[in-house]
């Protein structure tokens, strides 16, 4: 029994790596651009379909297709911010929310129109089934492990980018005080769009790993958004390492709930979120 629980906990931590990936982009959007992107989950699903198209079209491995999908995604997110969302930035934040809500519905139905309602998966080849025996009787999938490690590297890189680079300094300046940033001549609309392009890069990686590990279909965006949102809030708004912690907590809760059935898996995740949120509304590592 104890071994089974330990096993579930380990699987949960690994699942948390994937959830952290979903959430990193949203964490940046919330922390830097100061809005909640309701289309975040749907954009990730859109990128999963794009990855699927690229790797079946060119006959390459999904991980290799990232070379192509990441720049495309950056461009997409850059354009989305520059051409659409920037128009309502600085007004009532609820307007941005409603616009992203419209985008979410357009993406879901566009994907349904283009690809049908079938569930898909990215072809991972041997990577899908490879396991590593940690201890006698305890196996860990190589792919989930790779996902968690990639998520940790992503958090570290984003942290470096935000706090140690010139672009990061500009992003933080624009985010902290748009008026002051404009006053010293920073091109804030382009800086926000650049930040959104970074979000796009994380979303593309998340889309690839999600497609390798889980089924997806045009309607799977909202559940991804809710998980990402929960991880961000649990971790503390604006904290990237907090988002990693939040993702792992959700992963473990879901994994233990999943012992019973799929519905309990989802219930356990949401219930854990609400419970921890009530006890600690500011999250694990609040920035502000």
């Amino acid at each position, binding site marked *: 029994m104890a071994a089974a629980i330990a096993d579930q906990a380990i699987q949960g931590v690994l699942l948390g790596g994937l959830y952290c990936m979903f959430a990193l982009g949203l964490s940046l959007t919330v922390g830097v651009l100061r809005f*909640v992107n309701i289309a975040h989950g749907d954009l990730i699903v859109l990128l999963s379909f794009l990855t699927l198209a690229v790797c079946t079209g060119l006959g390459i491995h999904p991980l290799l297709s990232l070379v192509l999908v990441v720049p495309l995604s950056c461009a997409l997110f850059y354009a989305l911010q520059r051409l659409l969302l920037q128009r*309502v930035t600085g007004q009532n934040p609820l307007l941005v929310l409603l616009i992203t809500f*419209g*985008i*979410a519905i357009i993406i879901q139905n566009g994907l349904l129109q283009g690809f049908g309602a079938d569930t898909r998966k990215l072809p991972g080849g041997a990577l899908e089934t490879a396991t590593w025996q940690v201890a006698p009787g305890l196996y860990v999938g190589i792919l989930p492990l790779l996902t968690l490690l990639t998520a940790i590297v992503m958090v570290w890189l984003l942290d470096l980018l935000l706090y140690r680079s010139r672009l990061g300094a500009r992003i933080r300046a624009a985010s902290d005080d748009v008026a002051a940033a404009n006053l010293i001549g920073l091109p804030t609309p382009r800086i926000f769009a650049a930040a959104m392009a970074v979000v796009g890069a994380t979303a593309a990686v998340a889309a690839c790993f999600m497609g390798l590990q889980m089924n997806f279909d045009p309607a799977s965006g909202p559940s991804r958004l809710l998980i990402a949102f929960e991880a961000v809030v649990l971790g503390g708004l604006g904290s990237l390492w907090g988002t990693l912690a939040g993702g792992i907590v959700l992963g473990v809760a879901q994994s233990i709930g999943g012992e019973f059935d799929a519905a309990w898996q989802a*219930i356990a995740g949401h219930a854990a979120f*609400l419970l921890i949120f009530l006890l600690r509304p500011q999250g694990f590592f609040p920035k502000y």
Partner: protein
Amino acid sequence: MLRSQSPRVVAGRAVLVAGMLMLAVAPWVFGLGTISVLTEFLTMLVLALMWNLLAGYADVVTVGQHAFVGIGAYAFYGFAALAQIRPPAAILLAGLVALALALPAMAIVFRLRAMYLAIGTWVVAELFMLVAGKLSAFGGGSGVSLPLPVLRALGARPAERFIVVYWLALVLAATAFFSTWLLLRSRVGIGLMAMRDNEEGAGAVGVDLVRARMLCFLWTAPFLGLAGAIATLQKLRISPAASFSIIDYTVFVIFNVVIGGVGSLEGPVLGTILFFVLREYLSDFGTWHLMLLGALSIAVILIEPRGLWGLIRRRLARDLVPVSHHGSRL
């Protein structure tokens, strides 16, 4: 009362009154097919009025409105089918259950601010839906049909039942419309509108924003629950996916209000009428229908955040349904 003679306003109010009279005599004028669509229209109108009260006046955007519609549907089934209480009483009790469950939901989501609150309501709605799917007495994940005795209590034949459900929907919609109007004209509504115009100023003269927002949130819950009970009487069954449908009870509603005009009483009415007109022509196109509504709502937000009604209102001297009091000052 200087400009109240404005002919456009008089004409607009005449259209509004004519519409209400038409709804009041509809059962004697229209066939059952039209009555069924009108019932659906009235239910959607209630949802639109409630979302508009929160988003347009209380500055609380929710994406989880379908939670209380679904709770109303399930509570109605529980009282009417399982406890075998007479349907009219069961409907009212369903509204009360929605109100009772709104309290813990509010305690959770009101700890979040603005946009985070929006997603928070969605999480709560998702949890309610998942739990509803675990209730085996309510048909579990696949749902259950309303038993025949419940329907017979409303009328011996289907045709009679259509009319009874229509009257219920009309009474609910009229109550929702006029009571929300009174709420907006009350101290609470004036405070909210003052807050919308100038938050610091309103706070300084003693408007309690948090209390006003809470009151609005709790105000909407029983109406949403009642709408859920009436929708169940039309659909004749409950299920987690259909009774807690985010598309039907939240997505469409948000689009209707945003397109029609958020922050006025005319906007949700206009948006809901437009929705049913568009649906007549576009429902065969399924996904395109939703994509068009999404694109339309984005365009409206960019061009005129007060929606189509905001565009029309520029050409009118005053509101058709006056919520603010500056009319009487003239």
